[in-house]
């Protein structure tokens, strides 16, 4: 084991001195531990700074901050509820749209696509992840939103207009547009991670399923999907994390109105957006502290949503009796 470790630039003769490499293992262990602790420390420090800098707002508004819908910089009265609602709803919409798309894409790429098509398609999808958020946002305003307002939204309204979710005037910018743009942004990450996970399913599993006379779909369902379930769930959680914190592109298409409306065609607002929008010009102390508190709430919501997702994942994995290879 030790003999295989060779650092670039170090001579093989040095690596061969076993005595020196006795130190290597513990050293490596402590080094990785230190790195892992740095990550933990970062989260703690960020949390502490947000907590510290939101003191004025926390004292002034107390827990009421979480349930108040008022956001009035002139009167210095602030509440986070519409932003919490907007963040959760837009992220949920994004998942509803992106998860089936990316899982299907990943399945196609690993199980069904002809070999020559796989690489170019993968590269294209990963290119999508390289598009800067602000560019996507501008594309959102000038291309996507007008198209949605002229075509998709009227169709949705005429088909599902009896539901309160699809009622009201069509401005173009709205909660649903925000959800769609976030879905586009989290597609590549969910797709790439899912693809890696599906690829790691041993071929033996598939062959065993075929040997039992399974059709292609049955083989995918029984041998591949159930085996990869936990990993795929992890991929979705990664996408969710990104969706909750997504800022610029959402800001540009969500309508930025701190209001809780049932209709998905009504404008909304997210926590990350209000921080990006108002931080630079916040002149009073309470205002600034309220924005920091929004950051604190966003951190908290992200942790809670992630924890819930993990609990759900473990529950699902527990119900799954397939033995892992």
């Amino acid at each position, binding site marked *: 084991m030790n003999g295989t470790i060779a650092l670039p*630039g170090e001579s093989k003769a040095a690596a061969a001195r076993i005595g020196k490499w006795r130190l290597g293992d513990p050293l490596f262990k402590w080094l990785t531990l230190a790195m892992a602790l740095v990550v933990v420390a970062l989260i703690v420090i960020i949390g502490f700074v947000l907590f510290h800098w939101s003191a004025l707002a926390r004292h002034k508004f107390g827990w009421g901050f979480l349930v108040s819908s*008022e*956001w*009035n*910089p*002139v*009167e210095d009265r602030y509440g986070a509820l519409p932003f919490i609602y907007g963040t959760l709803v837009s992220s949920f919409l994004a998942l509803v749209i992106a998860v089936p798309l990316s899982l299907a894409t990943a399945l196609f790429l690993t199980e069904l696509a002809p070999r020559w098509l796989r690489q170019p398609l993968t590269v294209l999808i990963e290119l999508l992840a390289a598009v800067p958020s602000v560019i996507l946002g*501008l594309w959102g*305003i*000038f291309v996507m*939103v*007008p198209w949605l*307002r002229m075509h998709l939204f009227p169709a949705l309204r005429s088909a599902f207009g009896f539901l309160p979710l699809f009622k009201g*005037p069509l*401005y*173009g*910018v709205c909660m649903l547009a925000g959800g769609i743009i976030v879905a586009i942004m989290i597609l590549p990450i969910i797709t790439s991670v899912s693809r890696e996970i599906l690829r790691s399913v041993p071929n033996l599993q598939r062959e065993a399923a075929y040997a039992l006379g399974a059709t292609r779909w049955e083989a995918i369902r029984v041998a591949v999907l159930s085996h990869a379930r936990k990993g795929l769930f992890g991929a979705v959680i990664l996408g969710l994390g990104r969706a909750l914190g997504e800022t610029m592109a959402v*800001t*540009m298409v969500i*309508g*930025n*109105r701190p209001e809780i409306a049932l209709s998905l065609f009504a*404008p909304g*607002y997210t926590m990350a*957006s209000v921080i*990006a*929008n*108002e*931080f*630079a*010009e*916040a*002149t*009073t102390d309470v205002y*600034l502290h309220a924005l920091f508190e929004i950051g604190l709430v966003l951190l908290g919501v992200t942790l809670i949503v992630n924890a819930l997702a993990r609990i759900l994942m473990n529950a699902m994995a527990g119900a799954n009796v397939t033995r892992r290879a």
Partner: protein
Amino acid sequence: MKSKRTLILALLGLALAALVVPAQAQMLINGAGATFPYPIYSKWFDEYAKVDPSVRFNYQSIGSGGGQKQILSQTVDFGASDGPMSDANLAKAPGRIFHIPTVAGAVVITYNLPGNPQLKLDGPTIADLFLGRITRWNDRRLARLNPGVRLPNMDVIVAHRSDGSGTTFIFTDYLSNISPAWKSEVGNGTSVQWPSGLGAKGNEGVAGQVKQLEGTVGYVELAYAHQNQLPFAEVKNLDGHFITPSIETVTAALATAHIPDDFRFSMVNPPGEKAYPIAGATWLLVYQKPMDPAKGKKLVEFLKWAMTEGQKMAPALDYAPLPDNLRQRVLQRIAGIQG
């Protein structure tokens, strides 16, 4: 191995030297604040480097809030803000802070109606449009202001800035000045609780929203409207004239606005035949006694230059220069800085 390491060390040394040497030769003056005047300020700093090569300016356009905060904590040599500092903030300062107005800008009302007619608006009508009280474009009050214009029977949709901005400050300052209802229900600030409408980020966001949706009305900086050929309304001023926003009508407003001696003024809705009513200045914030007198001296020289030579560059960038009477007063104030 060894030679490689030596080479890297030598390169590092060179890089450090490159960083250190010019810093000794040049004085670096740091500033931070408003984004609205950033184009003219960077032009000024660029041009001024030719006038006085011994000093270099570093300006971070982090927003007015940041500018005020940094000058209060003395982490910069000057701050910049699109609104004057409040008494509460000034009281936190360790020394006396001067407000130095540099240029002014205007806010225009832009809209999207079929055929894009030239609209005429007055203050109370604008306030009611943005309060959500005038909900249809063929409202009687709009029709009375615009005889001969065919106004469509269409919903009014309001677009406003979602990001905190000096543009919003000027616009809400004007609405608060002209409409008691606006003042009591909304008030003025870089961000306000909008009674209606959609929030869009930046001038480009508001303009994009207006362009895409017929029946939308919004407000953008004059410079932005000019550069993008947006339609904008003529606005009735205090003297009863309908004024097209332009550099000249903003400078005219500055000339007749009431400006107190501390220069913390609002210039919305001033008297004067040619004054465009929705305009505002932007300020540099400097200590009367700068922390570093040597830098203070250089800063004073720069400010004098900005008030004279620098002003000539403003119109090309769509900023209104200060009128002569105000410039003389500002120059006197600059002379009072103890560099």
